[in-house]
């Protein structure tokens, strides 16, 4: 790091500080995490009751997992920006930090949040939903990892947009869904492959797609964020 320019180091320090502030705030109040975990538990229970003794096809089960993940993401990932608007601290952050640091700090926070919740979701889902088996664990792990990054990336920039629009919750899934859909189709397909026991190499195409999606979304969000964030 000593070779990094001073302004880069400063930027990284600001980013880290934004991330830590959100993290400490969440650890202290635990609003998001507890609500999200309860949401996931409730949703999986509903699915369990709906399925009853009938199973569902591999395709359906792969898809439903990501439906749960999507709605959990919609419940929790807008909070990082909406909370600042509700508490009136947007101006404070605008004064303290360069826009890029706010974006990457909150992106990192959302990534940690969504990965944690997804880990719980996946474990609960695999444990309780009969018929959901993973035969190629390597594909599944990479899929959940890349999927989490992708969700965090798309959800964070849309959260920034709706927070500044003063509309809060209702528009969030409406705006997010078309953006997230390519990601969803990829991860559902890859999960199906993991369920059916495909070789790791067969999923390479989907992983390439996921990685390019992530790169494209993060780069364009980072460029757009300054316009969204500043008045």
């Amino acid at each position, binding site marked *: 790091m000593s070779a990094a320019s001073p302004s880069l180091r400063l930027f990284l320090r600001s980013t880290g500080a934004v991330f830590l502030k959100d993290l400490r705030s969440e650890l202290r109040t635990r609003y998001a995490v507890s609500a999200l975990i309860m949401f996931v538990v409730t949703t999986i229970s509903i699915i369990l009751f709906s399925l009853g003794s009938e199973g569902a096809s591999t395709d359906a089960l792969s898809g439903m997992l990501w439906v749960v993940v999507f709605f959990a993401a919609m419940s929790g990932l807008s909070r990082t920006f909406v909370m600042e608007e509700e508490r009136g601290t947007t101006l404070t952050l605008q004064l303290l930090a360069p826009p890029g640091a706010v974006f990457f700090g909150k992106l990192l926070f959302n990534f940690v949040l969504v990965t944690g919740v997804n880990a719980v979701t996946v474990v609960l889902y695999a444990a309780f939903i009969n018929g959901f088996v993973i035969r190629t664990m390597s594909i599944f792990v990479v899929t959940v990892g890349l999927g989490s990054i992708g969700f965090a990336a*798309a959800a964070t*920039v*849309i959260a920034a*947009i*709706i927070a*500044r*629009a*003063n*509309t809060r919750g209702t*528009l969030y899934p*409406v*705006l997010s*869904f*078309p*953006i997230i*859909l*390519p990601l969803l*189709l990829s991860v559902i*397909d890859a999960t199906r492959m993991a369920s059916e026991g495909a070789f790791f190499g067969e999923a390479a*195409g*989907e992983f390439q*797609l996921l990685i390019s*999606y992530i790169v*494209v*979304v993060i780069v*364009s*969000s980072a460029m*757009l964020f300054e*316009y*969204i964030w500043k*008045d």
Partner: protein
Amino acid sequence: MVLKILLGVLLTAVIVSGLGLPMSPHPQAWYQLPVIPGLEEKARIIFFHVPTAWLSVVAFLTSMVYAIQYLRKRDLAYDIRSSAAAGLGFMFCILATITGAVWAKFNWGSYWNWDPRETSIFVLLLIYGAYFSLRSAVETEEKRATLSSAYSIIAAVTVPFFIFIMPRIMTGLHPGAKGDPEGAGPVVEFKMAPNMRVIFFTSLFAFTLLFYWMFRLRVRTAEVETHNQLRG
């Protein structure tokens, strides 16, 4: 003036020839369209469905280009254009979805199948819907312009994943998808007979002209409205 007349002539020609010219299995005369096995009369819809789908994408890209210009220059005139293009795109997208569903019913048996191209037009419809919901939720003009511009750019960036990548990877019903024995299909590989091609490309051109004309009209209307609001 010239534009309007040209447009009227072209569209009439397209509609008449597209719907009216007879189809026969072994076309002899220039005005006889060939029969495409499996499609027959329903093939006529290609003159209308493909252009509307094409326009809904063109409009979206136009909207995005103006969105980028707005963010760079902060001139609300760009936002008027961005929103006008999006409005037209929304309309054409609805038309494309409907004509597509009609064709799907006659061709493949059901109105909707979640084939990749169908999914992409549906997603475009959702994007347009989301774009306008966002616009109606913001009160300040500048903020509305900024946020909707940002959204249309983000959406535009994910759209290629649908239109180009998905159909290659997933099998689909549309010509050009993986698993289509005909290859890229009549449109992409120019397997259309010459006279059909003439009508088709004229239709494409005419519809594009229509879009351009309607776009100019909408922009002028919006500018007059804004002007009146400021005075009144």
